[in-house]
């Protein structure tokens, strides 16, 4: 419902366009938690090889969308289609689960909880390869080394347990593990948010390289507009479960239309920036969250 209130920039992710080319197609996606509407009638497409960001603050519903697309959460209503296959209902049977795994993968935010503490990176990647590709263990070992190369991990780092790796290295393992299934779409759920600035730059460069090398599409979930600009072509801006603006990332960030997007854009510190009190915003959108209880 929020969508219709906002002029839709036409671009590759315009839901009114043809869905024939779409890798991921989301229509009327809604999620209720009890009486709380976390995601309200959201639609978008990602073209093959495209890169879309969902940007918003806590409570915007962006992570809930990621969980529904990847299959960790069932939508209340709406459809999610990848490569022509519906994935909005739970998978039936091992074969379908595996096929869905080969279509969409995810890299989480916290590098300290996203790896099994008792499993080396090589073993984690090998487990995925055995599931999706099979083949001899020698073949798989070769592929593990290739994936390690792709994400910049050497043999010693691949064989180390997660506790011996830094946050950036763990995130590289998580990326390699996700890519091992050769997914069409990789969801990056705040995947660089927990990293130090200097490490974040390395991983952002890596993600750009991976996309260029493999042609994988990205769905980036982020609160960080600069990161969004760095690795996505298109963006949708969400506020309280509703899409408030969408379009090409560059256009939306350079010429934000919706009041909320303007506030978001103006809140990012840049050289010469001064912080402004919310009360100084004459056209501020309804941000009464100040009085709300946020679940964090």
């Amino acid at each position, binding site marked *: 419902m929020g969508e219709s209130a906002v002029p839709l920039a036409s671009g590759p992710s315009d839901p009114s366009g043809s869905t024939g080319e779409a890798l991921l197609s989301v229509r009327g996606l809604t999620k209720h938690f009890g009486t709380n509407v976390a995601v309200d009638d959201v639609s978008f497409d990602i073209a093959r090889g495209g890169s879309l960001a969902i940007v918003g603050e806590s409570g915007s519903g962006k992570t809930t969308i990621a969980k529904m697309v990847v299959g960790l959460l069932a939508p209340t209503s709406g459809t999610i289609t990848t490569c022509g296959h519906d994935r909005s209902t739970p998978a039936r049977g091992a074969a379908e689960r595996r096929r869905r795994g080969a279509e969409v993968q995810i890299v989480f935010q916290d590098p300290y909880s996203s790896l099994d503490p008792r499993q080396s990176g090589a073993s984690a990647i090998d487990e995925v390869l055995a599931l999706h590709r099979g083949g001899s263990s020698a073949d798989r070992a070769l592929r593990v080394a290739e994936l390690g190369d792709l994400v910049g991990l050497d043999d010693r780092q691949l064989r180390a347990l997660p506790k011996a790796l830094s946050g950036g290295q763990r995130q590289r393992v998580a990326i390699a593990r996700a890519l091992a299934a050769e997914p069409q779409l990789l969801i990056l759920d705040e995947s660089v948010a927990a990293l130090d600035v200097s490490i974040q*730059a390395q991983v952002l460069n890596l993600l750009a390289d991976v996309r260029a090398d493999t042609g994988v599409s990205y769905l980036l979930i982020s609160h960080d507009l600069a990161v969004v600009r760095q690795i996505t072509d298109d963006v949708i801006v969400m506020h309280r479960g509703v899409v408030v603006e969408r379009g090409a990332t560059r256009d939306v960030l350079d010429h934000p239309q919706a009041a909320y997007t303007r506030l978001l854009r103006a809140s990012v510190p840049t050289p010469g920036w001064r912080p402004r009190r919310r009360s100084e915003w004459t056209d501020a959108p309804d941000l009464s969250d100040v009085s709300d209880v946020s679940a964090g």
Partner: protein
Amino acid sequence: MSAADGRLLDVASLAVQLPVGGELRTVLHDVSFHIGPGEALGLVGESGSGKSMTARAIARLLPAGAVTTGTISYAGGDVTALKGAALRSYRAEVAMVFQDPRAHINPVRRIGDFMTEALRTNHGVSKADAVARAIGLLAEVGIADGQRRLEQHPHELSGGLLQRVMIASALLTEPRLLLADEPTTALDVTTQADVMAILDDLRRERGMALLFITHDLELASAVCDRTAVMYAGQLVEQRTSSQLHDDPLHPYTAGLVGARPRIDGDVTRLAAIPGRPRSAYEAPAGCAFADRCEHVEDACGEARPPLEPIEDGFVRCRRATELRGMLRAGGRHG
């Protein structure tokens, strides 16, 4: 006397070691800076740089067994030697705000109890006066219905609101120096802007000094007169905030600026600093940044360079003068 020469807080050659696994591990090494009355200093660094530990040393909140050398003096007095009543009155003058407000507030007590407890027990203020003061300060941080808020429990407040409560309660004792340790890192970006604006206004109105700790160079520049950059437990550069961004003198500062993606322009490839941030105990023997620096020479590994004064600040790089002006260009392509 220190206060007379325009310094409220003076940190000189501060070094801190913490006991880890039965041995002492260096977390801070030769940290020196000063803050004048009403002045704001930013302290910027990545994980393990020692920025939070510096604030904890000043607030006398280091863990048991920590070994501190060097001096921290506040208004001319030695902070490390304070005890009892003197320490309590120091803490009334030097307040601290933390990154995670929820971890620093008793979840089962009301906001009102939390805000007025110190005033009533340590400063003998009557209950009515303490409550009136709390409501007044809540209004100053943009919380209009203070009376109602005082009756609420922490879980009923959002993160941004709770951080405002923490700032208000830090200001109850009218401190002259506020130590703010990543106070907005856990908040949404629009809330961050709001909280920073409030913090900045309050500081200016009250002439309060601020030590602002953050990982965000731009955020520090926006609210601080001077900004210091820390790496591996040492200060590597300290400048007026605008200079730091436009004319960095230390390769690490330039690296931090170049590594951050931009919101207002397109960068095809980020100038990432290779390797990962070092903690003080694992840094190379000479210059701590030598193993990640693209301008490193053999001589950089020989001795730890001192923090040397340069025009409007200090820098810890033996090639600073020679590299000046080349760092931005050098860091941008890549």
